[in-house]
């Protein structure tokens, strides 16, 4: 008989209840993973702490990932929860250097959801899956009482075949690597917020939601030695860079003036008191490649429509667990930190 252990397997977290900020993609989310999930589930695949896990089955390497989608409003300029549920998961696979192949989809629907909304979302999902080259091969539906769900939640899981020759994980990042950004930041977050807050712009900001395997495949086919990839979803560029820096134990130096942000997104962020470096994207990623290949990598990315705005924004430095530093437009230096939770609109 197994000996009964009195000792608590994991120390209790600092908070006695879950806060919204635990889901914001910042430090509290990280703490939740480290203190609650990792101690119980830890294994070598999970320990890599990448967007998806790479598992070996027979002779092949498969990438496997899952993500849940909760967004209000369900439909926004440039997309809907259905596109996100497809692109978010195929992008996590692409960030493992894997060609996305199959998805599952679980729907939690709230009683009273207009059938037309469900239809719109499902049609968008179908189109998104065709665009991303994946098949939705299994699924599940549950309905909860009115008031117990925000219209609709979707969870998707995905499988892909790894085509990258070397491991694409934070641990592969080398000091001296160039940091490349695949396009302008913040349009997804601003598109969603503008509907939520009833803001109108001369030219509406549309979500950047898009599948990212095509640009990744272009880099791999050209023989670029890709060390790490990360899509910039919740928490934005700043959080992604910090996650990789802390997982790798390296520092980064980023040039603010090199980070592309459109005037429309900047304007909206000024009004809302947000920093575009932390705003969510659904069709942008960073790539870490050797400095000697950086110029070619940017050119290759620019030839693919979804990453036509690619730019080299900084470099990796050796300083162990050093912070991500940003050189401001006026030439000063500051820390580019991870937020605790979500960005909050300020008072004045």
């Amino acid at each position, binding site marked *: 008989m197994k000996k009964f252990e009195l000792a608590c397997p994991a120390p209790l977290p600092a908070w006695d*209840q879950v806060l919204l900020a635990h889901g914001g993609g910042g430090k509290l989310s990280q703490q939740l993973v480290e203190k609650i999930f990792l101690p119980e589930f830890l294994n070598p695949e999970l320990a890599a702490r990448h967007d998806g896990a790479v598992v070996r089955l027979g002779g092949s390497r498969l990438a496997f990932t899952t993500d849940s989608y909760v967004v209000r409003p369900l439909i926004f300029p440039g997309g809907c929860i259905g596109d996100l549920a497809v692109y978010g998961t195929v992008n996590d696979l692409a960030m493992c250097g894997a060609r996305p192949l199959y998805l599952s989809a679980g729907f939690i629907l709230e009683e009273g959801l207009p059938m037309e909304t469900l239809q719109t979302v499902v049609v968008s999902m179908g189109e998104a899956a065709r665009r991303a080259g994946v098949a939705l091969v299994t699924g599940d539906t549950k309905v909860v009482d009115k008031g117990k769900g925000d219209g609709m939640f979707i969870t998707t899981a995905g499988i892909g075949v790894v085509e990258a020759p070397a491991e694409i994980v934070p641990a592969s990042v080398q000091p001296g690597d160039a940091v490349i950004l695949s396009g302008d930041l913040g349009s997804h977050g601003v598109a969603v917020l503008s509907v939520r807050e009833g803001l109108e712009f001369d030219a509406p900001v549309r979500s950047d939601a898009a599948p990212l395997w095509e640009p990744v495949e272009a880099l791999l086919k050209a023989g670029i030695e890709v060390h790490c990839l990360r899509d910039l979803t919740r928490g934005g560029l700043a959080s992604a860079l910090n996650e990789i820096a802390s997982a790798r134990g390296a520092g980064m130096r980023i040039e603010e003036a090199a980070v592309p942000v459109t005037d429309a997104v900047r304007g909206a962020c000024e009004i809302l008191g947000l920093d575009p470096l932390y705003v969510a994207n659904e069709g942008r990623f960073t790539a870490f490649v050797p400095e000697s290949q950086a110029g070619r990598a940017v050119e290759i990315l620019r030839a693919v429509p979804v990453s036509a705005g690619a730019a080299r924004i900084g470099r990796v430095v050796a300083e162990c667990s050093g912070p991500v530093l940003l050189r*401001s*437009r*006026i030439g000063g230096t500051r820390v580019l930190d991870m937020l605790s939770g979500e960005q*909050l609109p300020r008072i004045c």
Partner: protein
Amino acid sequence: MKFIDEYRDPLAARKLAQAIRRTATRPWTIMEVCGGQTHTIVKSGLQDLLPPEVTLVHGPGCPVCVTPLDLIDSAVAIASRPGVIFCSFGDMLRVPGSSKSLFEAKAGGADVRIVYSPLDAVTLARANPGRQVVFFAVGFETTAPANAMAVWQAAREGIENFSVLVAHVLVPPAIEAILGAPDCRVHAFLAAGHVCTVMGFAEYEPVARRYRVPIVVTGFEPVDLLEGIHMALLQLESGRAEVENQYSRAVRREGNRPAQQRIVEVFEVGPRTWRGIGEIPASGLRLREPYRRFDALARFPVAQGQVEESGECLAGLVLRGLKKPQECPAFAVRCTPERPLGAPMVSSEGACAAYYLYGRHRQ
């Protein structure tokens, strides 16, 4: 982007930094009053451009930081009452009260909502006649007109399920409190541009004369701040002590008269306790008699006990410019944005948050 790019221009910044280096011949300490300015300074790394003669200290202009602990406790207590919809600007939600923050109250089931304008709270009250809608009216003179407008509109429309928890503070009495303290080391002030868009700057003229201190009304972008610092230095080096206006694209001497009239109609000046500083006479706003029925503290009696601040937190010294955030032994060790001891560590206008988020590499 117009009205932004020219004030973040690297060339303009370099030229002003050179002018500052040429002008400063002696050590000078300049205080920027507003927390928004503090954040620009630290976020843009502006201090890297300044010569060693110029020291910037950060002032009390963070409304969230100076809102007293017992008032935050009252907010949490009111928000936790059944039937109440509690509305606030987002910034206020993370600030710790003596037992919890509004965010934690929300996680515990309170209906706490972030609004962008107090008028959104009035709209909520109109749409939910069976609920009590309370707005946390926090801020300096900048937010006072909109908050006054919300109360005025609720009164005009007879929306009796709306009320406000008032925590309004005023800048000039705070500047005087800092200048009047025996340990004051501030030689010049950069006044908060947005406060002056509402109030103008005539009320600073007697302060400049009485204390022989230059006051420059300054904007919020890096080039604005460098220009404000340069204007203050020119005064200091030539022995002048006047009120000057760097932020002339937004501020006039007389301010915004209709906005001022709305404030005066709804609010009157009264004493107020500033968290970390103490009571300052005639430094806050409270509802005038015809509008007192909209006072949330009168509508929802909550026990206001004496509450103890963390003994370790140096927020009071930081807010008066007597200490820099990283001089606090708890900074980034026992006090972080996730587990703050004081409000300046969580507010997006708090000096400790600015140093933690953007300035930790300087330690």
